[in-house]
């Protein structure tokens, strides 16, 4: 097999540009997803039935349909809905990933919050704290800690799934790979390099997550 390293070096700057886009896209998706997810999970656990249904519908719809379809729906459907011209892929891609990530994160938070012993909420309420105070000071700090590993997994999954927005020509890493391929006609060099760049990112994240996990585990012991 002849692997032409000079092909890789030639297109690497372009791939790194794409990689930067992937990182940005994923960071936005996970950050917004965390906020959306926290909000949805609190609705889901609230006492108001309509809000619970709303939260469930959100989560079920987004987890029960392919992300690819959701991307199409946002990119081609949203402009129709708003009666505007087409949206730039950067925007629609980000929106689709944020909304999708929110659904998965909501489930992570819900599980985390529900894993906290009922006695914690009861102790807080018995001191006269409101539901919101008990959530904020007692339940969420404990739940967050337990959510770090699954949130890390979600981050990694989102990073890989973000490659799907290449279908709307958003120039993230996979899309940059496609462009490299059409120009170089070297599939092995192209896709191996792209794969390697994804691997570097996912490994970095999992390192970061296990570091955070260790830090928080230490906090727990009061050291």
């Amino acid at each position, binding site marked *: 097999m002849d692997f032409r390293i000079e092909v890789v070096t030639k297109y690497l700057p372009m791939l790194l540009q794409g990689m930067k886009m992937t990182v940005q896209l994923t960071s936005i998706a996970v950050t917004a997803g965390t906020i959306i997810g926290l909000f949805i999970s609190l609705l889901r656990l609230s006492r108001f039935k309509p809000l619970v249904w709303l939260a469930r519908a959100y989560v079920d719809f987004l987890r029960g349909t392919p992300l690819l379809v959701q991307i199409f729906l946002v990119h081609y459907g949203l402009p129709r809905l708003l009666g505007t011209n087409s949206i730039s892929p950067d925007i629609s891609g980000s929106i689709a990933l944020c909304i999708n990530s929110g659904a998965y994160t909501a489930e992570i938070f819900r599980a985390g919050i529900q894993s906290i*012993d009922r006695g*914690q909420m009861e*102790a807080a*309420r*018995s*001191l*006269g*704290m409101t539901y919101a105070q008990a959530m904020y000071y007692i339940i969420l700090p404990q739940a967050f800690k337990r959510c770090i590993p699954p949130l890390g997994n979600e981050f990694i999954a989102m990073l890989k799934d973000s490659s799907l927005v290449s279908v709307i020509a958003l120039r993230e890493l996979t899309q940059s790979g496609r462009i490299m391929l059409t120009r170089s006609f070297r599939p092995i060099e192209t896709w191996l390099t792209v794969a390697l760049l994804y691997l570097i990112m996912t490994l970095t994240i999992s390192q970061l997550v296990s570091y955070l996990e260790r830090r928080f585990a230490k906090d*727990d012991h*009061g050291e």
Partner: protein
Amino acid sequence: MITVNNLVKNFNNLQVLRGISCHIKPQEVVVVIGPSGSGKSTFLRCLNQLETATSGEIIIDGVTITDPKTDLNAVRQEVGMVFQRFNLFPHMTALQNVSLAPMKVRKQSKKEAEDLAMSLLQRVGLEDKAHQYPEKLSGGQQQRVAIARALAMRPKIMLFDEPTSALDPEMVGEVLEVMKNLALEGMTMVIVSHEMGFAREVGDRVFFMDEGLIVEEGKPAQLFYNPQNPRTQAFLSKIL
């Protein structure tokens, strides 16, 4: 201090409290005993509305807390609760556990709340453990912190749900000692406990509950040694 009229509590189809009525005077110490599943915990949890009553009326210090319009958060500030499994906040030190509610609910300054917390920890003999996290404390110590935490809201009434039954035997004494001092200082207390010695020494009255009703009540000596109801007799013969 506490008046309960015909309190009923259902969980779905299960009737757990079937019409409880009682009156507890200020500074009185009432010990509640009864077989497992008789509704002791549920009764106690209705007294601070951790469980909402299905029907009936509970009046605490003149406030009808079963009235849906009552501000329960305000009521709960006056009614402290201590749990069987302590339920300390594991992510906070003993001091933080005790000072949190005074700060966030009573809106005291951090300094004020921590001074108060420190004096309460001193009172339960744990000032040297103020900066420890709960998991570093023994069960008895955790329960004493939990008592200090409840006291920090300066409640008028304290509820205890089997405060010593999750403890190793050698730690029961230290917790009962704290509770006894509270009683001597005049705290109104409702205690679910099967510590007979404690009930006799500290209790003013004992309620025997069975199947969701207060079947018999009386002075500790009378109820323990001369029970009138056959069900009380059967229960006491099993545990004494």
